[in-house]
């Protein structure tokens, strides 16, 4: 038997509570606003934070895109998309520029976002100080006192140990010069896309019951030292083996049989777009 769910799955009371938390998150950029994370029909840790944000803000006229590590067609993205679509009947898209809400796990799309779009990021660990201090009431106090020596020390220790900061994703950022924030496990490559972004960025952690945000045109600075500046992943000398793009985030793919390495766009819809564009040019020139 299938229950007839309310629009966007949630009852109106849940939406209101989450909507109020989002307003506070926008007013205090980078600050983690606690909220009453709901039980969802997917397991915690599978994007329930992002899903709750999406369901609370979505309306009938929205166009939704969901990506998981850059891919539109991975299981997590498809399940979330199906759930939202079945309860709201909104239009779905894979085209980044057509979407009004983009829910994403661990990537910010390659195509620059616009002022009419909201990106919702799924967050596993919203607390950038968790590695330094286990107790929530202490980390909350550290944030209130602007005490971020622990996180600086963590980066310093990495430099001592490895000769560079060894954060691989989720490199901590300073938001609006006040709060240190976990940008969610996006690669360092994407950190700069948060700085002075045109679109509103919402971040939701379902298991940890936190919502936070980066409003548009807000300073987002990756933590770094003067003599060890912030660096992003480098793909110099590589290009996508499908569409040939460079200057984007690439995945390394290893052929199981031959052991051969190749690189491919991580953002699948961007790659598809490039291929379609090329094909269009080919068709036009071959018929002309």
């Amino acid at each position: 038997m299938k229950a007839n769910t309310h629009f966007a799955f949630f009852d109106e009371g849940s939406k209101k509570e989450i909507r109020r938390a989002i307003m506070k998150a926008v007013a205090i950029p980078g600050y983690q606003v606690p909220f009453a994370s709901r039980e969802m029909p997917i397991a915690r840790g599978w994007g329930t934070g992002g899903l709750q944000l999406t369901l609370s803000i979505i309306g009938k006229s929205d166009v939704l895109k969901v990506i998981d590590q850059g891919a539109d067609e991975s299981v997590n993205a498809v399940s979330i998309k199906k759930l939202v679509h079945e309860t709201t009947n909104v239009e779905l898209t894979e085209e980044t520029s057509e979407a009004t809400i983009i829910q994403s796990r661990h990537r910010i799309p390659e195509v620059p976002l616009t002022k009419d779009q909201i990106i919702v990021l799924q967050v596993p660990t919203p607390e950038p100080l968790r590695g330094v201090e286990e107790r929530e009431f202490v980390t909350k106090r550290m944030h209130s006192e602007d005490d971020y020596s622990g996180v600086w020390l963590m980066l310093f220790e990495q430099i001592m140990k490895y000769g560079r900061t060894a954060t691989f994703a989720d490199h901590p950022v300073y938001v609006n010069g006040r709060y240190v924030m976990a940008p969610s496990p996006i690669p360092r490559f994407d950190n700069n896309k948060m700085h002075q972004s045109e679109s509103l960025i919402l971040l939701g952690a379902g298991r940890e019951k936190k919502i936070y945000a980066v409003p548009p045109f807000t300073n987002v600075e990756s933590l770094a030292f003067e003599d060890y500046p912030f660096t992003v992943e480098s793909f110099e000398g590589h290009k996508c083996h499908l569409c040939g793009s460079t200057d984007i985030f690439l995945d390394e793919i290893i052929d199981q049989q031959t052991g051969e390495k190749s690189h491919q766009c991580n953002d699948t819809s961007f790659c598809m777009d490039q291929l379609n564009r090329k094909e269009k040019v080919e068709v036009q020139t071959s018929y002309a």
Partner: protein
Amino acid sequence: MTFDQVHDLQQVYRLILHSMSRPGTISSLTDIAERVDMNLPCYDATILSAMTFFDVETTFHILSEDQQELIEKISEYTSAKYAPINEADFVIVLREDTETAIQSAIQNCKNGTLIDPQLSSTWIIESTLLSSEGELTLRGPGIQETAQLHTSFDHSAWHARNEKTKEYPLGIDLIFTDENAQVVCIPRTTSISVMGVS
């Protein structure tokens, strides 16, 4: 009340969210306000904002002392409870309220704590016609360079607001409404300078 409590309020929310994340950007609720037929002594945009955010978990305060009927109506519609100024999550300022009343209310309202800055009050303020050409220059998160704005708040009210938001992240977030069903928001992060007054 013939507007749709699910879909219309979702739209109102998105418009207010758009304005809150872009301080100084005026959003129009006209289409939805046309369907408001509640006949209350406040602007349509005011009641729509209240209906969007209020529920049984929230408290609100209305500055005017002789608005018992409006208080009762809002409580009935939203299940929110009336509370004194120093406890209210939301504060509603109507057109008739004086600058002195507003000023003292700003001084006494909830401002959050350094540990929980979200425990501050959000203000819904009725203004004369809002306009993006005005005496205020806004800067801060959500604004590319600067934004201009006109509201009915006078110099002393802005002064009180600036004092209240001095110890960031403490502070109050403001939603202005007008009779043309427009809204504009000023979160605590926005720095405001009034032209002609240093």
